[in-house]
C-alpha cells in the first residue's frame, strides 16, 4: 500500500506526434480510489501504462510510495494491472492464472493454494478454478483477472477499463463489487474509464483528462457541481450541461448574440470585476435539473418553445428553443407539455456557471 505521485508527466509516442500526455501532475493518497476519466484518446490509458511501467514517459517523474520508479520495469514496481481484455494466460487453468504471480515469487505450494482459495472465495470463482479461461463467460474471465491482480497484495492496483467488455447488468454488479473490494483491501487504486457513471459511482476522487491535459481533480460531487473547465461541464452529467454563448450585457445581465436569451444576475457586479475584458465572449452554463418550467403566460426569466419531449419514466426531459439556443430541462414526469407550447424558464441562480469562452475556464463568483 502506497501513495502515488506523478510529477509533470508527458508522453510523446513519436518525435513528430503531439503529446499524448501533457504535463500531468497528480497526487494519489494511500488507499485512495482514483478514477482517470476522459473520452477515448485523451491520454488516460497512456498515463496509467506509464505508472505501470508498460510505457516509458518522455518527461516527468513517477513515485510509488517513496520510490522513484522511472526506470523500473513493470515487474519490479509491485503493482497489479487489470487489462481491458483481461489478458488471461489461455493455456493455464483459472487456478494457475490466479496463482501465477505468487509462483513467480517462488512462494510455498501450501501458501499459494491457501491464498488462491481465499481469493477464489472472495470473488466467487471456486467452481471454475479448474477450467481454462477461454470459453468462460466474460464476467467470470474478469473475476479471474481480478483474482490474479489482488492475490499478490500489491501496493497499487491499476485498472484499464476493466468493465467495458461486460454487459450492462453485469457491469452494474461488478461496479458495486469492485467498490467493496477496494474498500475492504484499502489498497490504492487507479482506475481508467470513459464511463462517467462508473467514475461518479466508484471514485473517491475523479481526475478528468482531455487531449492529454488534466482538466480537474476532485470528488464526484465537486466535479459535478463545480466544473473547472468547459470540457468538464460538457463531459460530466446526463444530459450534459446546457451551455450558451453569450456576453456581458450592460452592467447586470448576460445576453446571447441575438438577444433572445437574456438573463439578469444579481451577482453581476461581482462577475464584472472578474473579467478583464468586458466584451470577452462567455459561456453561460446551467444543468438541466437546475431549471424550472413556468407555464403561466408571460412568466419566467426567459421564454421559449418546446420542441422535443423525452419521457424517461422517472423524469421527463424537454428541449426548449430560445432564439438559436436549445436548452434541455429536466422535469417531474407529471408535468406534461406539448411540442409547440410556449413556456417560461427560471434558473437556480446559485447553481449557474459562467465560463470564459477563450480560456475555457470557469469564472468563480
Amino acid at each position, binding site marked *: 500500500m502506497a501513495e502515488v505521485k506523478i510529477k509533470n508527466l508527458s508522453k510523446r509516442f513519436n518525435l513528430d506526434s503531439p503529446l499524448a500526455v501533457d504535463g500531468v501532475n497528480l497526487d494519489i493518497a494511500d488507499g485512495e480510489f482514483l478514477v482517470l476519466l476522459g473520452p477515448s484518446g485523451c491520454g488516460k490509458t497512456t498515463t496509467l501504462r506509464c505508472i505501470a511501467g*508498460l510505457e516509458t514517459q518522455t518527461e516527468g517523474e513517477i513515485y510509488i510510495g517513496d520510490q522513484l520508479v522511472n526506470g523500473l520495469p513493470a515487474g519490479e514496481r509491485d503493482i497489479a*494491472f487489470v487489462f481491458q481484455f483481461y489478458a488471461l*494466460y*489461455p493455456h*493455464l487453468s483459472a487456478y494457475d492464472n490466479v496463482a*501465477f504471480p505468487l509462483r513467480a515469487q517462488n512462494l510455498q505450494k501450501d501458501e499459494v493454494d491457501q491464498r488462491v482459495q481465499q481469493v477464489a472465495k472472495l470473488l466467487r470463482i471456486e467452481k471454475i478454478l479448474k477450467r*481454462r479461461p*477461454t*470459453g468462460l463467460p466474460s464476467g467470470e474471465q474478469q473475476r479471474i483477472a481480478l483474482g490474479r491482480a489482488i492475490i499478490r497484495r500489491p501496493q497499487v492496483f491499476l485498472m484499464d477499463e476493466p468493465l467495458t467488455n461486460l454487459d450492462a447488468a453485469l457491469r452494474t454488479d461488478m461496479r458495486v463489487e469492485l467498490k467493496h473490494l477496494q474498500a475492504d483491501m484499502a489498497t490504492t487504486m487507479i482506475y481508467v474509464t470513459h464511463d462517467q457513471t462508473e467514475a461518479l459511482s466508484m471514485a473517491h476522487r475523479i481526475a478528468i483528462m482531455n487531449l492529454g491535459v488534466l482538466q480537474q481533480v476532485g470528488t464526484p460531487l465537486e466535479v459535478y457541481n463545480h466544473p473547472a473547465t468547459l470540457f468538464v461541464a460538457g463531459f460530466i452529467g446526463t444530459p450534459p450541461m446546457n451551455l450558451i454563448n453569450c456576453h456581458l450585457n450592460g452592467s447586470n445581465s448576460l445576453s446571447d448574440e441575438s438577444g433572445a436569451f437574456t438573463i439578469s444576475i444579481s451577482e453581476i457586479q461581482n462577475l464584472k470585476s472578474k473579467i478583464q475584458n468586458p466584451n470577452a465572449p462567455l459561456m453561460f452554463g446551467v444543468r438541466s435539473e437546475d431549471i424550472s418550467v413556468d407555464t403561466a403566460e408571460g412568466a419566467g426569466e426567459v421564454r421559449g418553445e418546446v420542441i422535443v419531449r423525452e419521457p424517461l419514466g422517472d423524469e421527463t426531459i424537454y428541449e426548449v428553443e430560445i432564439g438559436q439556443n436549445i436548452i434541455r430541462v429536466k422535469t417531474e414526469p407529471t408535468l406534461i407539455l406539448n411540442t409547440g407550447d410556449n413556456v417560461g424558464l427560471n434558473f437556480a441562480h446559485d447553481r449557474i456557471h459562467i465560463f470564459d469562452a477563450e480560456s475555457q475556464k470557469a469564472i468563480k463568483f
Partner: protein
Amino acid sequence: MVNSGLTQNNQLDKEHSGDKPLRVRFRWLTDNRMSFLFLSPTMLLLLFIAIFPLIWSLRLSFTDWSVIGDAGKIPEPVGFHSYGTALGLGETRTEKRVGVEVAERFAITGQFVLPTVIIELLLGFGLAMLLNRKFLGRGLLMTVMLIPMMLTPVIVALYWKYMLRTDIGVINYLIHDIFGGPRIDWLNQIKIAIWALVLADVWMWTPFMMLISLAGLSAVPKYLYEAADVDQASAWFKFRHITLPMVTPLLLIAVLFRTMDAYRLFDQAWVLTGGGPGGSTEVMSFYLYLVAFKDFETGLASAIGYIMLIVIIALANLLIRKINEIADEG
C-alpha cells in the same frame, strides 16, 4: 425514347424467331441453368485431366496391365494382386523383390521427410522469432529470405548440384578450405546423399515455415506479454505459456503442408542424385516413376500410387485430428 426502344426490341425479336419473342424462346434458360452452363467448360476440363485419370488409374491398379506390352488390349482385372505384391505378399521371386523394394523406399522417404520437416520447423520458427520485431531493413530482409521458396524445384536442385560438388562446390570450399574439414562427396555416398536432398529442401522451404510462424507470432495479443511482465514472468514462461500455445495450431498446419509436400518429392531427387547411389535416395515418388515408366508395370505402379495416397491421407488425418484437439481446447 423508352417506347421506341421497346418497339425496336420487339421488332428484332420477331425478325429472328418468326412469331415468338426471344424471352419466350429462352424461358428454359433459368439462372440456375445459366450458371451451370458457365461452369461446364471448367468442369469438363477437370473431368478429363483429373477425375477421369484418377478413376482410370484406380481401375488399372486392380489389373496387371502394362502401357507398353498390353497397348490396345482391354485391361484384365486381377483383383488385389498388385496391392498384395506391393505390400510384400507376392509369391514369385520378382514379386517378393517388389515387396522388399516398396518397404525400403518407404523407409527412405521417411528418412527424408522426418528430418526435413523437423529442421524446417525449428529453423523457420527460430527465424520468425528473430524477425518478429521492428528493425531497419526488415522488409528487405524478409523479401530476400523468401526468394528460395519462389524458385522452381528443378532450378534449386541444379544450384545445389553445383554447390555440393567436391571440386568446385562452394559447400566443400567452406568445409575444406575455410574450416579445414574433409571434402564430402555429398551426392555419391550412400549415407550422405539423402542428406543432400534434405539440405536442398530445407534451404528451399524453411522460408515457408518462417512465413507461417511469423503470421502466428504476430497474431499473439501484446497485452498477454504485458500481463506477464507485470506478473514478473520469465522469458521462458512467456515463450512456453503464451507464445507456443498460441502459435502451435498454425505451426501444425504448416507441418501438415510440408509433410505432404516432402512426401511426394521427385524433382530434386531426379536432378541431384538420380535416385542414387545404389537406390539410396529413391524416395517413393521416384520409385513409383521407375516402376511406371522404366519397367512399364502400369497396374503395379497404380497400386503403389494408391498405397502412397492412403498412407498420406492417414498421416494427414492424424495431424488434422491433433490440430482440432488443440483448437477445441481453445
